[in-house]
């Protein structure tokens, strides 16, 4: 298996993980809207995934970078920048006291990220298969 295939295999796995995390986010946020969960619990649950998610995504970008996958790197870079900016401004965490005021925002962001990860996932899958095919 070529290095390219390995890299994209990694991308597929990580991409799937991120996808699941986002789906989880979306589910919990909509739970909050219909009052299945209270804001404190929601924030406790979500906040433990925020940093890992950002880290994993940044790490994946880094892997793409060192393996010379420029398209994948460029595709991921804006999100990394956005995340870094959020962390710098300390706005990355869910705040139970503000959650109802910012719910719409959070929801929108979640959906956009979900779409992003979904596209990424299929792109990595495609590249992986491509690499495997060209290997053989």
């Amino acid at each position: 298996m070529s290095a390219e295939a390995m890299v994209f295999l990694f991308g597929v796995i990580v991409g799937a993980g991120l996808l699941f995390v986002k789906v989880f986010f979306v589910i919990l946020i909509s739970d909050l809207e219909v009052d299945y969960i209270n804001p404190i619990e929601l924030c406790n649950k979500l906040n433990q995934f925020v940093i890992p998610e950002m880290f994993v995504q940044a790490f994946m970008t880094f892997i793409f970078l060192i393996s010379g996958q420029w398209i994948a790197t460029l595709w991921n870079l804006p999100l990394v920048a956005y995340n870094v900016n959020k962390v710098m401004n300390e706005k990355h965490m869910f705040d139970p006291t503000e959650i109802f005021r910012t719910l719409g925002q959070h929801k929108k962001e979640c959906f956009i990220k979900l779409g992003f990860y979904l596209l990424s996932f299929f792109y990595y899958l495609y590249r992986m298969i491509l690499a495997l095919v060209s290997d053989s």
Partner: protein
Amino acid sequence: MRPAQAAPPRPGFRPQQQPPAFGQQPPMPQQSISRPGTPGQLSGPPTPQQGFRPPMNGTQPPPQNFGSRPPPLSGGMSRPGFPQDPNQMQNAMRRPSAGGNSMPPSPSMQRPPMPNGAIGSPSMAHQQPHLQQNGSPLQRPPSVGGMQRAPSPMMRPSTLSQPGSPGMPRPFQSPQIQTRPPPGQFMGQGQQPHPGSPAMRPMGHNGPPNGAMPGYGQSQSQPPTPKMPHQQQQQQFPPQNQVPPPQQLQQPPTQFQDPVVANLGSVNSAPVPTPHGGAHKPKRMYPQGAGSYQDPASSGSFQPAVLPGNTSLQGSTQPQQLNQGSQFFVPGENQGSGMVQPVPAYQQGLQPLAGQPLQPNMAQLSNQLGAMNVGSGPGYGFSGQGTSQSTVALMGVAPKILDLEAPPPTINLPTGSSITESPYANCDPSYKRSTLNAIPNTSQLLQKSRLPFGLVITPYRSVKEGDAPVPVVTDSIIARCRRCRTYINPYVKFVEGGRRWKCNMCYTLNQVPSSFDYDPETQQPVDRWQRKELNHAVVEYIAPTEYMVRPPQPLVYLFLIDVSYPAVQCGMVATAATTILESLDRIPNDEGRTKIGIITIDSSIHFYKLSSAAAEPQMFVVSDLDEPFLPQPQDLLCNLKECRPTLEALLNRMSDMFKDTQIIGNALGPALQAAYKMVAPIGGKVLCLQASLPNLGSGALKMREDPKLLGTSKESTLLQAASSFYKTMAVDCSKSQVCVDMFLFGSQYSDVATLSCLPRYTGGSTFFYPAFTAAKSEDALKFAHELAEFLSQRIALEALMRIRASKGVRMSAFYGNFFVRSTDLLALPNVPRDQSYSIEVSYEENLNIPVVCFQTGLLHTSASGERRIRVLTLALPVTSSLSELYASADQVAIATLLANKAVERGRSAKLDDARDALTNKMVDILGVYKTHMTASSSGATPNLQISDNLKLLPLLTLGMLKHVALRGGSQIPSDLRSYAMYLFSTLPSQCLISYINPKFYSLHNMPGNCGTIGENGIEMPVSMNLSSERLERGGLFMLEDSQNIFLWVSKDAVPQLCMDLFGVPNYESIRGGKTTLPALETDFNQRVNLIVGKTREMRRTPYYPQLYVIKEDGDPALRLWFLSHLIEDRADPIMSYHQYLGHLKDKVNSGSF
């Protein structure tokens, strides 16, 4: 965990605290209030109300059952099912099931069990839980257990067949709620019914409502209106079924005695509907009323019937009005309030309002007016002048500030909206007011008008002398809609001969508890029309045990006193100790359960053991700030009565104990954690008296004030919390019913923005004393007064507030001090008196109903240890006309809501944005008014016009722009700004308006009766416009903004005045600054002292305004401060009032609306 919870037969003291997960087990007894209120959320745990009736809803209990059950027995019988419930409930409650809420529970499933449950057959009771989680057995049997004894078995069938009765309790939906122990826990599990407790008799609710009626000797089923003794009374004044405008009626005896206002008050009360005084005559009109509200689907069974007594009236008016609801609001009717006031000169030349359609049909109008009894006053001739009166030109005239005291526009509900004609059937504006007293029927109309739509609620306002106390329903019959959990209120409709009531929020039919008509205790029929909840919009219920998850908590006061060097130095410690000592008797302690504790903080945390056993208080010092622990498991919080001697000894010595301290460290963060550990098991109040910046341990803060940031867009970072510690702490506290109050004494920067986070999310209060030094007796007095007042407040504890509204509107944003726990549920560990909350309302769908209701339920534990529910119901008419919308807008409420929104914006974004938003809102409103309401709909106008009732809004907006809270510039320290913002978001309208637009009196030439005690207490002078033009040479002026009082002495003041007022020979010897007026024998001095005294207590607020004497040529800072309150003047860089209007006009003319 739920089973575990359910298990303890008698929940001990707050058993639910053990599982720390907040969500799982909300510590609060929110079962009642927290029930999802939105129509979409149908479900809820069983609740008492359901318990009253549910069995009957869908079921046909065989008649014989009724007779056969001995009441006490059955109480026991239904219980055996309980132990199983929790599990089953749980299953049912899991999320999947929650999904079920979308589908109506299948009747077949649910009905069968019910009779059994109701009947109390033990075997059946077991099955029940499966079938419906809300199972009736859980439902607490009506507390007035025996009541339905009067079982008239026959009634059921008719009820059942009601097609529209969706009758079934809905599946649980919200985990929040689900996880709550079923109310049954309390009753059922206990299995020890207090035999005497009526609550335990499940039988009661089976009683057919009409069974209860026999006393009336009327066959209920046929004529919808049973004859009641009052029939005659109704006839006496038929026209009154129009609800009299409550604002006017209830206007409390005016507190501001300036003659005009006083006069106003008296005139206003004139139209009070009846010569019969306040005692409203109950009347039964449900059949007709019901007609107007029926939605076709469910009204099938309803048959209008003729009221024997008042046919003539209702028959004639009602039918017309049914369809007319929306047209009902007549702009002209406004004059009710408008006319009484002296018509300002500038109003005479008004341009008639072109766009204002005259309301539909004169005959109807006069009809209504007649019905309201309002038109009878002289000069109220309904000649259409109302329309012309309602537009005023703004420019070129001084704002008519006296109208700030005017009552809000009348709420003109369609005739017969209220089932009783009580003058108290709609909410008093001091409790709850809406920015719009007529509600647009579509969100498009609201958008078009650009008016903000929201509510301003002060649910726990203090009741001063002369105010009517809140009526209390003592019999714990709490009738609530089984679907949306709305409490029964004067705007429901009784149908089917009064056996059912139709919820005015979701239009579900509900059984009327039979005890509404029959009192089981006395075996007498009672008159339901006398019930307080049907006559009063503001009512309090004594809640039965279903509304508690634990016994009502006692009051707990834990003082966290800063004893570091700065605190001791400024005298705060000594003053606080003395004040607390003196207030010990005033702390509410009705049941002798109140607990008290003291922690002092410097670089370590000092605890005091106050147990009664030890004569001397013992002090424990904990210097481990990383993991603060409690040195003793108990006795740190002590019963106030028992530990009184020890406590007094401690307080007496406190100022000496630390007087030589040199420690400048302060470990507030760790101390808060320790305090939380102490109080959390019970819940209570933590009062932090903090005179230095916390700088040790977690929660340490830095001096971050940076003058370079002030006035820039980064300024709002200073208004946000510096550390997340306090927010996290606040969330924990809110969970455990702990409320934190902050008393901040800053000689330097004290980071009000960060420290006030704790009160903001725990329902607390913040008090800020900049540059406090007890050496100044005025400072000490102010602090001592406010602390004592605060301690003696009869606060509410462990409260939950939910606001429900008629289908179609929902609450979208909340402003105030609380924690938002779910989309419409506010958690308030404490409710201080007179704190105000603003809520923004938005549309979900268009409204095609004539009346929209907003109901606030505040479930709380009163200071006397009773669990109570305070319910505020506000009903507002719906309109489709823009002109009505404008004519009914309430400028005071709008200003309050805008102030809250602006503060929110200023904190989270930029102050510039907040100011722009305010001005833009003003431009929008004026622009829309110009385009749609006036003749000059297009093109530039020479003048700005607005409806009469909104004419002061530009002034109030300008006042906000110029206020410390929002003003631009780099001069305002962020502490002061944060505190002003805090006040903006918590002051009730009454104070906030003065805070924005201070009152300004001329004292040297006030009329002779001012400052003397007149009919309405102390007479106040007439307030003047806030402009320095009014400052005459040689004059003495007073300005007060509810936080401070300024006496302006002109430098040409004659010696006589100085002598009379200050007791000094001439102007030069007057001392400026914070001061106390001497009490002299002179008439003038006494009058001014009375006026100052009156100013200090005329508002509902714990604040004690401080008096400053400003000399015209004195301290420039003071002088500027005073002048900055004169908001109609130009104060660079902000425009004067007239410039501001010009600015608005330019924008209006250049924009399109």
